[in-house]
């Protein structure tokens, strides 16, 4: 019952440029990629296709709005458009930063009610997808260690490879992962693949950005990505149907009332 900044960006946004790339540390690489692709607001319409191991699929479409506060923390609202019976079900998320839990609310139109939801857990899955809530949060650099390991080539692209390991006691306890390995394209500082390992170092999930586009300046966004649970053989595919990075959003659009009455 938590939501996310941009479900398509994998791990997200940032501006700034990098120099002396070859000497970059893991943390610098991730910091660079985060800052380079960050924008103050965005609106996206995304189709989710959930495929189980028998090939059965479920489809959903949702729209999300993200707004960066002055503190740098985001407020994000997500609403379902389709199927019809879940239309307008919405989730509002206020990022709290550092080790603090986010504030979250759920809106159920059938009950005409907004309900605050407890958001301590990170391992829980988002609405039946293979994404856990922690996959959807923006990368929190204060609670992880970033170890650069040998570079690799993914789909013909030269990549930095960074091993991301929880560093604080709280994160170690709450995270479902023992580590993640992120593959970051050297040319655009964009994560195109992430491998997730459990606390016994078993590879459990893989996220692959299948296609991406340059949306503005140095800023890139995924247009199609897929995350696969290796043991359950289930995949969630996210396909961006539309994206608006220009229309201004205001903070008052991210309130409980807005969640209930719509944008």
């Amino acid at each position: 019952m938590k939501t996310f900044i941009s479900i398509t960006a994998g791990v997200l946004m940032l501006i700034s440029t990098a120099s002396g790339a070859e000497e970059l540390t893991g943390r610098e690489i991730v910091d660079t990629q985060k800052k380079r692709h960050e924008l103050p607001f965005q609106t996206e319409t995304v189709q989710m296709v959930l495929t189980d191991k028998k090939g059965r699929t479920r489809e959903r479409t949702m729209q999300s709005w993200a707004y960066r506060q002055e503190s740098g923390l985001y407020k994000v609202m997500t609403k379902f458009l389709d199927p019809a019976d879940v239309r307008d079900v919405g989730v509002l998320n206020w990022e709290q930063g550092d080790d603090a839990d986010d504030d979250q609310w759920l809106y159920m139109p059938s009950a005409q009610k907004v309900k605050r939801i407890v958001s301590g857990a990170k391992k829980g899955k988002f609405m039946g997808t293979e994404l856990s809530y922690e996959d959807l949060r923006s990368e929190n650099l204060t609670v992880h260690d970033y170890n650069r390991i040998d570079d690799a080539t993914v789909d013909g692209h030269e990549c930095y490879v960074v091993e991301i390991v929880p560093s604080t006691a709280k994160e170690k306890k709450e995270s479902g992962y023992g580590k993640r390995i992120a593959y970051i394209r050297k040319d655009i500082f964009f994560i195109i693949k992430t491998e997730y390992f459990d606390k016994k170092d078993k590879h459990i999930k893989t996220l692959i950005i299948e296609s991406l586009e340059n949306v503005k300046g140095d800023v890139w966004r995924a247009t199609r990505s897929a995350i696969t649970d290796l043991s359950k053989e289930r995949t969630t595919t996210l396909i961006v149907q539309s994206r608006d990075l220009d229309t201004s959003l205001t903070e008052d659009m991210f309130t409980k009332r807005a969640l209930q009455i719509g944008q």
Partner: protein
Amino acid sequence: MLFVFRRPVLSTLSLVILLPFAVFHASQIVQDASVDGLIIQDEDKAYYDSVTETFGDDTLVVIMLKHPEGIFQQELLRSVKHISDSVDSLEITTHDEPFAVATHVASLATVNKILDKDGALDTDKLMDYLPGSEDEVLEVKADASRSQLILGNLLSHDLSATAINVYLRAPPEGAANYNRQVTAAIDTILEAERNRLGDLGIDVEIIQIGMPVIKSVLADSIQRDIILLVPISLLVILAILLFSFRSPIAVVIPFITGSLSVVGCLAFMSFMGYTINVVSNILPTLILVIGCTEDIHLLADYRNQYRKRGDKLTAIHNMMLKCGLAIFLTSMTTALGFATLKLNPIRMLQEFGISAAFGLLLNYVITIILVPTLLRCAPAPKMAGNERQSPLLDTLADKLFHLAVNHRPAVFIVTTAVVCVCVLGCLRVKVDADLVSFFKEDNQVRVKMRQLEQNLSGGQSFQVIVNTEGMGIEEGLKQPEIMQCVDELGEYLRTRFDFVISPADYIKVFHREFNEGDPEAYRIPDSSMEISQILMQLEGDEMDRILEPGCQNASIFVRHHVYGSWQMADETAKINEAVQRICPDGVNVKITGESILFNKAADTMAIGQVTSLALAVVIIVIIISILFVSPKAGLLAIVPNAIPILVNFGVMGWFNIPLNPGTCPVAVIALGIAIDDTIHLMVQFYKELKSTSDQEEAMRRTIKAQLLPVLSSSVALGVGFSVLIFADVVSSINFGYLTCLAMASALISDLMIAPGLLLSTRLISSWDLIKLQINEAAVAKSALFRDMKVSEVKKVILMGVLQEYSDGDIIIKQGSDCREMYLILEGRASVHFDGNVGQDGIKTLQKGDIFGELAFITGEKRSADVVARDRVEALRIDDGSLKNVRNRFPKVGAKLFYNISAILGERLQQTTEAWKTQSVYLDVE
């Protein structure tokens, strides 16, 4: 059979050559404790497979942790998490490949909660991480004890026990040791945890129970039973043989034939891909025990023959001739009895039936090859010059005869009473295929199952599947009235079983907690939209196990401790009634699960049992009817054999012994063995009838001759099977009791009821019909047999009494009044007038010739002497024989009497003519 006698070396060599192959295959036999062979591959099984495909495998292993001071202690919760994690990632090696075992692990460490906490909805994991402080432990405890989706299933109501429910993947193809491997691997995990807690000074009870445990314990029990009981039953039988025959050879022979037959049978099973399972584990004992009866009959006859002839080779030759037919028949009928189990739809019983039939036929072959050969090599039996049967046995035989023949009404009344009691018992027989019923009450499996059901919920489960496809709308389960019906069904099931969970429960709990825990909101919402929206919040592994994503199929998962297929059948009937009451049209509800399939297997097993028995009875009636050329003989033979079967079912009914795959074969075994005694009795009686026309005398001799072999074989069988009473597997124990009982009732019925019945018919054998050669020219000339077919003539002739004459014996004396006619079967005789028997006769009679028929019809005095010219075997046909022909073969009788009338008519005419001639002469005078 005589081939074996003439070529002992060749016959024995052929066996010796085959032996290494047999030993090799026998050693390859696979032991299988799974009960999959019980489940019938039909549409219900296919449905079950489709349900497990949709909702995930339902093979459940429950790991229970119990601590008297409660389970909510930091280290215990750590153990729950350790175990959950270790089992979830558990892999075993099959075919050199790692194989992940668990499909889903549900425990306090993995389950989600749905709770309103200070106005906020919390749907996170109950234990998102290991509680690090006492406060966190208390919070988990408070959350868990508030959650009705957890209580009773994963947590005992007194909070002292918790379960880790592990759902297992189906084993990969050919992984025979899967259950053992999984059980052992989980045990290792548990042992490590036990040790860890032990080091911390925490004494916790940790148990593992579930199908794989049950199956592997069962496999161990089967193995133990085979290793321990087969040699014991062999020893017991050999001891009885030693006691009965007081000769080492009588021990050595059955040991060799029995062991070889067991090896051969195991080799056959291995070759056919059959396994040693809960049913077939009794096969080695069965073959040893039943197989030795043939040896007993052969050895008993060998001793008799040796006593009579004093020559070993002749005794062996005669033994083969005399017993050949009987043991062939008994082997055939017993094997056929087992083969009828092929009709049972349960594969395990089919394989058992075929293997037993093969084993017994093989035993027959091995017996007829080895017994004469071994007897040849063995020293002649030592017996005092004129050794007689034990006087005790003679007295017993006389008493039995007296009772069976002279107290027929009393025997009839007692029999009828016993039959009535047994029939009433039969109506009470319960059918059962429940695996747990294979264990004794104090077995660790039962103890663990009880611990589990006392603390949490029973270890058994089934699913009630609600399908809405018939309603013609998509996502039917999102309709409030349908989800309401799922809820009502769930509530109904909750009144009858330990733990019930359905999608409706999740929806109701979510609805309540979304509304700040308002008890009024604990219901299915009124709109389908609200249901959809709640369901979207609940999506995940847990929900996938009870609601199919398309919302057309929901599973109501039920945990219970109902043991016994018949009880389960009662429950299923009640559930179906509730479904009729609760569910609207278009909603299709089906109950499925392994226990339901076993239950169905039990029903079909019962039907299969009736079919098998009916077929066995029909086959036996046909065989005996053909053999003794009389349907009456066939029907009579079945009466004493039906009684052991009735007694078997009667006792099962009155003593609550269920009909399960273990006890199911007893009835056919009882029939197969009882019919052996009847056949031995009938063959003996038939032989005795040849040497005396007095039926009662023949029966007296029959009982005397058969008492020892019938008694000793029955005792050997009874005692041999009774060893199974010490088995570990309950079905084998019941099998032991029931077969003992069946042997005893077969013995009593054959010695006390069969004689009375047999006296009411006169036996001829189709064997003789074929063997009998008559002089067709002589028959054609005989007016008695005018217009009769050869087979009809044979029937008349075979109603006679066999008489033997030595060279020079007078068969008919001229001038005597006797009225029999004769047929020469062996040897020659000559006809003489006026006592000139020393000279060449006026005619020589040979094999097939008939003589004396005129006096037989007319009653006039004999006109010549008939004298035996070497050893003559002749059939004597008298008035009694004629009556028999009339009763048994009315058509033949009619022809015979017509011919007799014609002969008498001709005779009258001749007399009249003679009288007329005399009158004319007088007139002339």
